[in-house]
């Protein structure tokens, strides 16, 4: 168990592809962190550098107080649960789990004790004598976790651990993994593209894109205070709506006006100062589909818009309404079973406290 510290880490592949750029990240001892991002964002390269399967192009990596840049994977005392499990097919489950301990020449009695302890923790004691080929995905997943945990790693990494499980197993394993972390208190890094996994298990989330760490924080932090449009759009389901517009002052009041003049939004007072302070010509207004309210009556209050229904889907527990406002499109989460039809005019109110503003040029939050 140890703290993991990445200082100005770079990864550049042959041919000049920069997979990871200037990554600074500290994972506290015993913390559960999720590395979240779309495919190709550099999260897997980061993971492979931590484990030692990929050379570090630049920067320093510390596990505890040890600089591990040049250490071979087996000397780093890290464990990785592979996405594909990567179990050793010719060996029994028991031998799979014991493999690392045998390499370390641990005494057989000690191996037996530790294998059985970890098997009990993962509830796979009854299959220790089988071979992986006979077992299903859920079991393989547990074996792969057991194999990683049996060595008491300083840092425990999981690469998309749930992606090959079915929905029921997945939600079960999410709870299990959280329990395991609570029991072992090991420094854990979960690499995933699925924000639900990250939110459900991790204490903090590190969002990456294009090889750059975008934001690190608790779910509340990245959800409520995204630092840029990427994080805002990536976290949250359905994703945030973005409306490009420009601020304009008319008769003492501040409006946001879309590029094609299809809407004018009276800016709530809350946001006026932020817009003024930034003094930016083009902004992207971000609002989550759950933060839009459908109005019965048209009003002219701040944060109100009028649009035309393009589609409405009633999904049982909620409804999803797509509204077009000129060239812009908005997704709204509504109650289910509304009688809305294509072409109907609807009135929406953006909840003032939930409006995000981004600089259209840099995409950074204002």
């Amino acid at each position, binding site marked *: 168990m140890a703290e993991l510290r990445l200082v100005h880490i770079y990864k550049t592949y042959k041919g000049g592809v920069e997979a990871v750029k200037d990554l600074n990240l500290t994972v506290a001892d015993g913390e559960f962190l999720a590395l979240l991002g779309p495919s190709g964002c550099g999260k897997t390269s980061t993971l492979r550098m931590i*484990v*030692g*399967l990929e050379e570090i192009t630049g920067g320093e990596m510390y596990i505890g107080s040890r600089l591990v840049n040049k250490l*071979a*994977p*087996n000397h780093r005392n*890290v*464990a*990785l649960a*592979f*996405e*594909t*499990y*990567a*179990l*050793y*097919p*010719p*060996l029994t489950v028991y031998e799979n789990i014991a*493999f*690392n301990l045998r*390499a*370390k020449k641990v005494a057989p009695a000690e191996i037996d004790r530790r294998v059985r302890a970890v098997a009990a923790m993962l509830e796979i004691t009854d299959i220790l004598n089988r071979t*992986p*080929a006979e077992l299903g995905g859920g079991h*393989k997943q547990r074996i792969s976790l057991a*194999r990683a945990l049996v060595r008491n790693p300083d840092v425990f990494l999981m690469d998309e651990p749930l992606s090959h499980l079915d929905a029921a197993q997945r939600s079960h394993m999410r709870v299990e993994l959280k329990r395991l972390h609570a029991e072992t208190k090991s420094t854990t890094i979960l690499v995933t593209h699925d924000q639900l996994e990250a939110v459900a298990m991790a204490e903090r989330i590190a969002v990456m894109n294009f090889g750059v760490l975008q934001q690190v924080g608790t779910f509340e932090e990245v959800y409520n205070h995204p630092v840029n449009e990427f994080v805002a759009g990536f976290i949250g389901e359905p994703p945030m709506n973005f409306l490009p517009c420009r601020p304009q002052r008319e008769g003492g009041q501040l409006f946001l006006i879309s590029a094609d003049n299809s809407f004018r939004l009276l800016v709530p007072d809350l946001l006026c100062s932020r817009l003024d302070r930034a003094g930016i010509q083009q902004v992207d207004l971000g609002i989550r589909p759950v933060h839009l309210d459908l109005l019965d009556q048209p009003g002219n209050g701040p944060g109100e818009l009028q649009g035309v229904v393009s589609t409405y889907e009633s999904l049982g527990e909620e409804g999803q309404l797509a509204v077009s406002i000129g060239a812009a499109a908005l997704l709204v989460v509504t109650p289910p079973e509304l009688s809305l039809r294509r072409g109907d005019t609807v009135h929406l109110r953006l909840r003032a406290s939930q409006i995000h503003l981004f600089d259209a040029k840099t995409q950074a939050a204002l």
Partner: protein
Amino acid sequence: MQTEKAQGRLAAVLSDAFLILYFLFALFPLVWMVLVSLKSGPELFTTQFVFTPTIDNYIAILFGDARAAAGVVAKQEFPRNFMNSLITSSGAVLISLLVGVPAAYALARYKFRGKEDLAFTFLSFRFAPELVVIIPLSVVYRQLGLYDTHLGIMWVYQLVTLPLLIWVLRSYFEDISPDIEQAAMIDGYSWWHVFFKILMPLVRPGLAAAALLAFIFAWNNFMFPLVLGGSNVQTVTVASLGYISSAQGFFNRMAAASVLATLPQILLALSIQRYLIRGLSFGAVKG
């Protein structure tokens, strides 16, 4: 239900019957060969199935006979020919294993320039008919002093055995996730340890099947030892020609020699039978 069951049974019976028929058809030449090998001279050209079997032919090819000793027919050298076949064929397979397993692994795992071209080149060894390359090869062999040597025959057999091994094993290695090797590296094992403890057991069916086929192809090869070998390395395939001369055809001895020459292949195939079916239905590796 009743009729369906009956139909199912009928289909099973029919398919069994068909298989038995095919079995008889396929094995008939072998049966005929065995029968001929047990016949004596006068019975040779009859189609009698009832005759007094004799093992004279076997004795003659293994130990020579009175007439051979007297110089009437060529002295039989079947045991030596058999050894030659055994040495060259197993030697060829051994070399192919030593070269082919690492080559197959590299072709499956590593990215390098010209990889597919290289793989294709190995395969292309099998394209050209042997007759096309045999004349230039024989010139080269005489120059290099490889003519009529065991090493020379093993070497030229690589044209037959190596592509087979490389291509079968490559697909096996490709089926094994590189994650397994990396997991083992994190576990603290050397690459060699992983290769022998984890990878080899996984490719064993393919290895067994490909090695057996390679052995059979080498064993049955006729053209290369005929042209590139002399009396030193004469194999059973080439030697079997010697039973027929312009004066007399010892077809019964030829048959006896063939029966004995088939034995190693049959024994080998039986001994690794359990790998064969899995091995030949490619890509049977599952985590």
